[in-house]
């Protein structure tokens, strides 16, 4: 499958491995999609997605790996599960998005919505360090990673988070060694 015109594509070279891979990793039966668009119709973040949920399924069916994994859309899903609840074929797009995000990161695709991706990463790091999420360190981490210190709206986000009474230092759980170990074993295994 390759691009043939601006905005066109050529089928017939038989790359359907992408569909198969996504199907396997997500466990979702994407070939059943009716393209009825009920998912997009109810999605709270669809207006912000560059590729709408139903289009994303379509593009996976047509084997358009690069566009799908490089899309911003996969980082916008907040997994509210409205789509899966109403889908006639019970395709959970949230699950699909999660699989796509993992694939995108795994393949080192340049992430379009870098900020959201970094937030995920920062969150995991925070749990890794202390066993619990500590918003201040997490946000600091996130800000550092995103190199987006000047971003206004984020600034307000940080400020608002800070309005609560935060402990000055992260409260560590006693068994943080165990947590660290779990993460290490996981990383090794994967």
């Amino acid at each position, binding site marked *: 499958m390759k691009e043939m015109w601006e905005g066109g594509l050529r089928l017939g070279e038989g790359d359907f491995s992408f569909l198969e891979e996504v199907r396997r990793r997500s466990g979702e039966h994407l070939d059943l999609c009716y393209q009825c668009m009920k998912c997009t119709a109810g999605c709270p973040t669809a207006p912000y997605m560059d590729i709408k949920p139903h289009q994303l399924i379509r593009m996976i069916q047509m084997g358009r790996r690069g566009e799908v994994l490089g899309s911003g859309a996969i980082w916008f899903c907040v997994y509210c599960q409205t789509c899966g609840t109403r889908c*006639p074929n019970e395709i959970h797009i949230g699950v699909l998005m999660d699989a796509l995000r993992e694939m995108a990161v795994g393949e080192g695709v340049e992430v379009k919505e870098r900020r959201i991706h970094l937030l995920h990463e920062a969150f995991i790091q925070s749990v890794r360090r202390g066993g619990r999420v500590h918003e201040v360190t997490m946000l600091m981490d996130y800000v550092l990673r995103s190199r987006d210190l000047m971003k206004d709206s984020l600034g307000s986000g940080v400020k608002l988070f800070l309005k609560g009474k935060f402990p000055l230092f992260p409260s560590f759980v006693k068994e943080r060694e165990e947590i660290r170990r779990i993460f290490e074993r996981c990383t090794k295994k994967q």
Partner: protein
Amino acid sequence: MRRLGVFICHCGVNIAGTVDVKKVAEEIGKIEDVCHSIDYIYMCSEPGQQLIREAIQEKQLEGVVVACCSPSMHENTFRKAVKTAGMNPYLCEIANIREQCSWVHQKEKEEATRKAMEIIQATLEKVRRNEELEPLAMSINRNVLVIGGGIAGMTASLDLAQGGYEVFLVEKGPALGGHMAQLSKTFPDLSPAFPNLLAKALEIVSHPKIELFCCSELEEVKGYVGNFEIIIHKKATYVDWTRCNGCARCIEVCPVEYPSSFDRELGMRKAVDFLYPNCVPKRVKVTPTQCRYFQDRSCRKCEEVCPEKAIQFDQKDERIHRKVGAIVIATGFDLFPKERLGEYGYGEIPDVIDGLAFERMLSPDGPTRGKILRPSDGRVPKEMVFIQCVASRDPDRYMPYCSRICCMYTAKQAKMYKEQVPDGQPYVFYMDIRSDGKGYEEFLQKTIEENGVLYLRGRVSRVFQEDGKVKVWGVDTLTGKGIEIGADLVVLATAIIPSEGVKELAAKLRATVDKHGFLTEAHIKLYPVESSTKGIYLAGCGQSPKDITDTVSQASATAGKIQALLSTDKLFQDPLIAYVDETVCSGCGICVEICPYEAREMDYRRGISIVHVALCQGCGACIASCPNFACELRNSSSVQTLRMVDTFI
């Protein structure tokens, strides 16, 4: 020792491509009592059959095995063929070497050849001990029971009556017409539904060959094809219909009003009322659950005012016995229940209605006299949304199948709306437009072009009420972007489901239903109106969703089948049924309990169990359960079966 012949069919390449038929014919021919063993490309063809006939006569064969496809295909063909050559047809048996051998062992040719030989040898064992039998002749009753008084049942009844057969038409409700009576106009010619229906209904009530039972259900059925004994449960209407003249004075004085289900809760009806104003038969019925007399005896106004003294509060249900030869099930459909469609606000938002409710609104004799007014405040809706595939084509949550008529009736409704409200805007959310009948595609094109109906491809995610509007969330097909429509009225094309009680009815009649509750036909292509039980026929939406045209064809088809069935004096049945060795039977009665067809009965005088030949289907359950080995199946005796098994071991 019998002189046997074996005929092995190639079935083109179907068998010969896997099984070495030449070798099989040769090897089988070596068996002592096999006097003739040949193969041929298509045994079922005329020359193939001729080979069998000639061999029977030339070699004086006394038994024939045809090794070919499943007996469900050509057993009849070959039994007829041997009969014309003067052999008893029950001395001919089929060895299935296609479905049970060549098709399943395409990769193992040698094994398949060996297995084919074994199957043939086993069948030879059976033929060696087969008896010469004659088909059982049974007398038949020429009357027909039709269940359901909608367009399907009405058509079948009239066709049968015109063919000279006596028909008992049983309708659950108080009048004829079914769902068609609720419709406004019909697609694709926009002819009004009611006048045509009325003409048919009047023909039925005046037809001397049709006996109509309203407010009635089939309570019990016994017997078998040609000889059913039925009991009809006729429920009390509390009105003597022989006296009632339909003057409607009782309706005027009745003080109780409640939402009419015929009008899909959009209009009111009285506790004594017609089903609908011009119903046939034009007779009133008292609804005891609403009537004050039945609640606290406080009102007898209808009784007082009736000039014919027709009101009978003490009327009782009746049980009517009849005998019939065949039965038509034409029980029709219901729409998917409201309660289960949460995201569409159905049943909760008054301005979200279903297709049938909108039909009532469009009907000139409906609750709004044909005016489109939204139920909540009676205003004319300026923006209307039609949603198709509501609970249809929704395999994980509701019904997987397509309801077949919604595309067309939605187009019709949108068209009628636009004609009545020229400045209104109808939107239709659809999945695939299915206009596959004669003239349907053209109708749809016209609707889109001339009436400015906006078709949007896709489902609706959610419907809710806000700001006095019904908000509909969908997606614009072209841009893929979400859109919100603030509609005044939303019409849902909800799924067609089999009508209530079909399952129980089917059980009584030993007909089968599929997992959705639709009645199953004997063969989806070749026997679409026959049920799996002989003598029981299917018509209309009880079998699967269909439009009026197809329903009428199907109903006529059942009538044709029944006329052919009942045209002879006797019915003939295969004699391959159970029999009892009366000297061995101890009369324990186990077989009576186990028989699924009620074909076994105790003869207490003689202390044995007997077989009703007409009821027995030859299933063998009694044979397996008999502790004394007193029962046997004709031409499938225990000895035969054991010998057959021996061949394989």
